[in-house]
């Protein structure tokens, strides 16, 4: 990995040149270093190469890159709220995590004949995580949405600082149970980068199994949620029962329904014997046949399918601009999946599932999920070919001061950056797929009807917990 430290304008020029060269924005965070603060931007290439561009805040601000890559918008606002770093040229720099501000400061001003605001949340009507949405509407038509999240900000990144690398895994990964394994593996990879450790094939296999087990229940859960979004109770219940089936399997294999405790830094303690493996294969085969049966039943339900097309559109150009990741990006035609560039995992010749109708609407996102469930089950079928044994990483190279782990979570690319302080965590940043995709949800909602928002929201099915941390 290339790290480059520039000052002021050199930093902005370096990033502009890299973006022109085909590099993409992956993450931006602020950190305190010795006497001052600095900002680090992580860029990635299509082949999975990474480079970090750093800049020292002199004295309080750095040049913004949001004009070069709008995907960095939330990251810069976060860096400002948590570290007090200013971004020259980012106007207005609205508060993101800081809630102690007047309404005008976080909401976009919308004026016009009959325009008014509908405030929803932070507490919602069902069993939903806490977050506030401010809809600017005329009648039922949504003009603009301001999503105000971070009601669940627990300061987990700060809590992890100063802990031993392995101890901090529990804190970082626990930012979200829905993406626990993805967060844990991304963090473990970052730490192993710091320590100069490589994953032997058995470790890669063990972790890939966990990631795909997580993807199975999440995918089923997403389809169930979309059914709930249009009020199709039969579909919701059918897929919810399959989610339960998948989570019970997680419990039997790892001792926890959300896979907690199954990932560690520098190795794996996961031990699955032959009888558990055959149980897993049996359960997954049942999930495969029952889910495809239920999926066909959904396809033949005209009133359900008719609700899906042309709602909540995020086209390919918008998805690229906003840095959208995961199924939401692939449904729009941005065919990117970190599973194609994960040498530390056992994805061998993984090919991205490509939808025929890449329209970036609710229907495309729903179909993309159903499409991706099958290869996911195929990967598990290939990997669950024998007992899983505990294994340790092997030393491969000299350690580094910064490590990066990137994993394709059920919601898209999750990036974890760890800066070491001796043998402890100096700074850790977790940027999950949900974090990358929230701006796309707000974008997708504009121009649609207010009653369609729950469906649009469910078609992304993002976590609040792993955004807020």
């Amino acid at each position, binding site marked *: 990995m290339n790290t480059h430290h520039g000052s002021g304008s050199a930093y902005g020029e370096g990033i502009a040149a890299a973006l022109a060269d085909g590099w993409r924005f992956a993450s931006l965070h602020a950190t305190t270093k010795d006497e001052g603060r600095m900002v680090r931007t992580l860029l990635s290439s299509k082949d999975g190469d990474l480079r970090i561009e750093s800049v020292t805040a002199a004295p309080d601000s750095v040049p913004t890159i949001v004009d070069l890559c709008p995907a960095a918008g939330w990251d810069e606002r976060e860096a400002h709220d948590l570290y007090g770093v200013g971004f020259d040229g980012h106007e207005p720099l609205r508060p993101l995590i800081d809630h102690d501000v007047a309404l005008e400061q976080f909401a976009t001003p919308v004026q016009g004949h009959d325009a008014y605001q509908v405030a929803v949340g932070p507490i919602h009507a069902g069993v939903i995580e806490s977050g506030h949405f401010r809809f600017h509407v005329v009648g039922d038509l949504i003009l603009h949405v301001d999503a105000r999240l971070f009601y*669940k900000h627990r300061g987990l990144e700060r809590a992890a600082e100063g802990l031993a690398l392995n101890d901090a895994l529990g804190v970082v990964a626990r930012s979200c149970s829905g993406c626990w394994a993805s967060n844990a593996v991304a963090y473990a990879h970052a730490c192993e980068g710091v320590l100069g450790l490589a994953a032997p094939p058995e470790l890669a296999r063990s972790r890939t199994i966990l990631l795909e087990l997580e993807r199975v229940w999440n995918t089923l859960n997403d389809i169930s949620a979309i059914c709930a979004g249009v009020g199709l109770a039969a579909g919701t219940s059918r897929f919810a029962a399959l989610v339960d089936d998948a989570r019970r399997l997680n419990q039997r294999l790892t001792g926890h329904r959300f896979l907690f405790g199954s990932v560690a830094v520098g190795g794996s303690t996961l031990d699955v014997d032959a009888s558990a493996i055959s149980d897993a294969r049996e359960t997954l085969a049942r999930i495969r046949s029952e889910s495809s049966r239920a999926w066909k039943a959904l396809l033949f339900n005209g009133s359900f399918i008719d609700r899906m097309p042309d709602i909540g559109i995020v086209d390919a150009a918008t998805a690229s601009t906003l840095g959208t990741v995961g199924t939401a990006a692939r449904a729009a035609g941005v065919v990117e999946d970190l599973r194609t560039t994960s040498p530390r995992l056992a994805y061998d010749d993984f090919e991205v599932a490509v939808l025929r109708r890449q329209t970036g609407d609710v229907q495309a996102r729903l179909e993309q999920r159903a499409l991706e469930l099958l290869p996911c089950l195929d990967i598990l079928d290939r990997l669950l070919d024998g007992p899983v044994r505990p294994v340790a990483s092997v030393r491969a190279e000299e350690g580094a001061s910064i490590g990066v782990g990137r994993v394709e979570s059920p919601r898209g690319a999750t990036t974890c950056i760890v800066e070491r302080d001796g043998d402890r965590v100096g700074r850790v940043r977790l940027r999950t797929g949900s974090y990358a995709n929230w701006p796309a949800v707000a974008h997708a909602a504009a121009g649609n009807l207010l009653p369609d928002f729950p469906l649009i929201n469910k078609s992304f099915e993002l976590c609040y917990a792993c955004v807020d941390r």
Partner: protein
Amino acid sequence: MLTLLRDLRNLRRSIALPAAASTGSLAIRHVDCGSCNGCEHELTLVSSPVVDMARYGLGIVASPRHADVLLVTGPVTTRMHAALLTA
């Protein structure tokens, strides 16, 4: 649609659920105050056919005004403090 309903019926018959409650009910209002999302995922599933808490007279309601129980998940973050008090 019939396939879905038939599968659900068969699923229900295959699960040996304990007898449903004959008396009493409890209306629950859930407030997330900074959980890891695990409680929400599991709370959604206890309404699914496999557990079906409605059999025991337990239900999630949309407003604290309708509720007997306020179910708080998470450690209560500073940003949720005021909202929780309102609820």
